[in-house]
């Protein structure tokens, strides 16, 4: 009898603990979902509902006006424009520039990084701790990089090209400039991640292929690459997300010729231009959804990747 009662107590205690556990986890879930929900809700609100008190959790008069505004072509026609102070803040340029820059930079980084990761993995290029020191690049505060690159792109390179080629080429506010700096800042990540993938491919396979007379490039192309292909996809997506979300370098080194989405969003934030909450929320939603989807796709690899190898061994 006593054992029965004890077991019942234990069971209830266990149930209570489990309920408590889920309560906390659900609580945090609410905390996480709330800002996202608020953003999506605001994106469907018209100007009158942005700053009401008490705030409207769901729009009382839902409207697609914000989305119409950001997806408009050219200047806003009067039906879409709210006030005389409103400008044509459409998403197309930001979207186009961001896609172009991020894709190119990520591909470039992937190419170079995989190549180097292969060399590090197979040949111990750069010494034993190269893979750690290369991460050092990533640890430099980006503002320091931005200041240096600003001076480099806007002053030195034009001087150099004028002196050497007679033509003044500035890399400030150019696609090439931004792609270059994005590539360089994400290379460490590519190398780090591809290293973990390439390390998993046993060298014996390549060795065997080499013995049978295959050239180096062929070995890489036919053996290594297919095996790390999924890893490459994951790395590409990870780096793409990083570039997509990048703000400081884009803000300081580009605009208006090149305008990424993050910089475009910031234009809505300028304290003197005022807060156009609705269109900002719409852009935020449009920017966020694909990235979240992509991120969830590579979720499994993120979990593995962020163990940083210290746990696996």
């Amino acid at each position, binding site marked *: 009898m006593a054992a029965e009662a004890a077991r019942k107590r234990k069971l209830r205690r266990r149930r209570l603990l489990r309920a408590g556990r889920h309560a906390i986890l659900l609580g945090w879930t609410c905390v996480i979902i709330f800002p996202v929900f608020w953003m999506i809700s605001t994106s469907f609100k018209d100007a009158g509902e942005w700053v009401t008190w008490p705030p409207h959790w769901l729009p009382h008069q839902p409207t697609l006006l914000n989305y119409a505004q950001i997806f408009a072509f050219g*200047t806003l*026609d*009067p039906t879409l*424009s709210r*006030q*005389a*102070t409103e*400008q*044509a803040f459409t998403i197309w340029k930001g979207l186009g520039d961001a896609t172009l820059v991020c894709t190119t930079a990520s591909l470039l980084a992937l190419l170079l990084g995989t190549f180097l990761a292969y060399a590090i993995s197979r040949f111990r290029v750069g010494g034993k701790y190269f893979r750690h020191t290369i991460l050092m690049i990533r640890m430099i505060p980006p503002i320091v990089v931005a200041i240096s690159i600003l001076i480099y*792109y*806007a*002053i030195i390179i*034009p001087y150099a090209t004028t002196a050497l080629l007679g033509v*003044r080429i*500035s890399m*400030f506010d150019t696609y090439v400039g931004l792609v270059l700096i994005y590539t360089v800042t994400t290379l460490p990540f590519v190398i780090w991640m591809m290293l973990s993938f390439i390390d998993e491919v046993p060298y014996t396979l390549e060795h065997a292929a080499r013995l049978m007379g295959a050239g180096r490039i062929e070995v890489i192309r036919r053996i290594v690459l297919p095996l790390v292909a999924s890893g490459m996809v994951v790395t590409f997506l990870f780096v793409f997300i990083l570039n997509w979300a990048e703000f400081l370098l884009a803000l300081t080194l580009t*605009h*208006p010729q090149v305008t990424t989405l993050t910089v475009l969003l910031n*234009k809505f934030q*300028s*304290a*003197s*231009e*005022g*807060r*156009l909450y609705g269109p900002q929320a719409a852009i935020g939603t449009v920017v966020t959804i694909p990235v979240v989807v992509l991120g969830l796709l590579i979720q499994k690899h993120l979990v593995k990747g962020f163990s940083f190898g210290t746990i696996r061994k």
Partner: protein
Amino acid sequence: MRLLLSAAFGVSLCLASPAVAQDPVADRAVAAAKEYVKTKGLKDPKLTILLSSLYNNSFPDFAKKWEELTGVKFEIVPLGYTDIPAKIMQESVSKTGVYDIFNDFPYTMPDAAGAKVIIPLDDLAKKHQPDFTGIADGLKYQQYYDDKLLVMINDGDHLLLVLRKDLMENSAANAEYKAKHGKDLGCPDTVAEWAQQAAFFQTKEGDTRWGIKFERGLSGGLGYRSVNFSYRHFPLYMKGLLFDKDMKPRITTPDGIQAIKDFAAAVEYMPKDIQGWGTPQIYPYWGSGLAYSAVSFPSIFGFGESNPNSVVKGKQLACLIPGRMVDGKLVRRSPQAAGTGYMVSAYSKNPELAYLFIQWLTSPSIGDDAVAHPKGFWDPFRLSNLTHKGILDRFGADMVKTTIENTKYAASLLLIEGNYEYFKVLDNNLADVMNKNISAEEAAKRIEAGWNKITNEIGREHQIQIWRKGVESGIYLDKF
């Protein structure tokens, strides 16, 4: 409706051009431009302008007209006005030569001049003879720096006081005010009087006064109190210049400290989070009839009259900017809080052509047409505006009269190098005082220290010289 208006305007511009352009200044510019294109043999002449995005919906009309008259095309690069100063300075460094004309507040001009990214226009002005008659001194000499003509303006953005006529003329309110303060309601002469009226009209949400129920309350007054705007309104409260003859800050004088106190005290009768408000918050708030008075750019009046959501149409009264009593005399100072200026890039390939466009745009006839443009942000500032039909229609005769009268008191903000840095120091400390983090005395001390540091860094001798020249030319109206 808006579309119809601007279409009508565009058409009228085209139709009117051959007949109305009796303006020799504009004609000279057009003729010289055509001559320039011919002599230089330019196949596809083009001018690129870095334009403040506020003018996205109005400037292109004039660019098109210019193209029709001279054959010179325009490429417009719009940019938010908070980004343009940085862009101009970056151009001084990267020297891309992409832009021919910069459109910005005149306050960017000193740094740009120091960086030599804009060219002095004196020689070109002597050759082509622009016309600055009818422009008040405070605005006219803003175009000069260090004795050189560097920017040409087409805008009178000096602060104006707008009142709610309906509330002011309410007899019950009048009686109560007279009983309390011994004066009638009306355009206040001094800032203190304005504060008094504003405090009087400050009403809580849901209260009923004089038979009117104020559902959402009534703010006594509106003004700009956010960072990047406070410094534009501060001169209203400051008696005299910000620096003395030797560039020593006067902010620590009793007048200066009192100015800080008064400036900060004004938030008592403004909306609670006024420190985070810009034009897109203040204008609609005014338009919704939630404030009794507002000190703002003159365009707030037009907003109240023409915005479809405005409920104050016909209820507005434009007043001269309230002043301060100095030695028993009433001294009014209306800060030219913004302004629209046009500068020629030093790296432009066709500087003379760029200058000619600016002369054309700021000429008496075209410039006035610009002010009349329904979607533009050029405000009245020239005497000829008093008789320009388009301007009178757009703003209303009373408002135009008051604004032009007000230009007599238009004073420039600091027009020296590093001015944005000086402004920031002022703004940050004013914000601290408004948040009750530090006292006005402490703020004054910090502002003085910050300003001295900047002056020393840029070069005290240089700054003193420029400052003295500026004060001499009369752009600040006050003298030493």
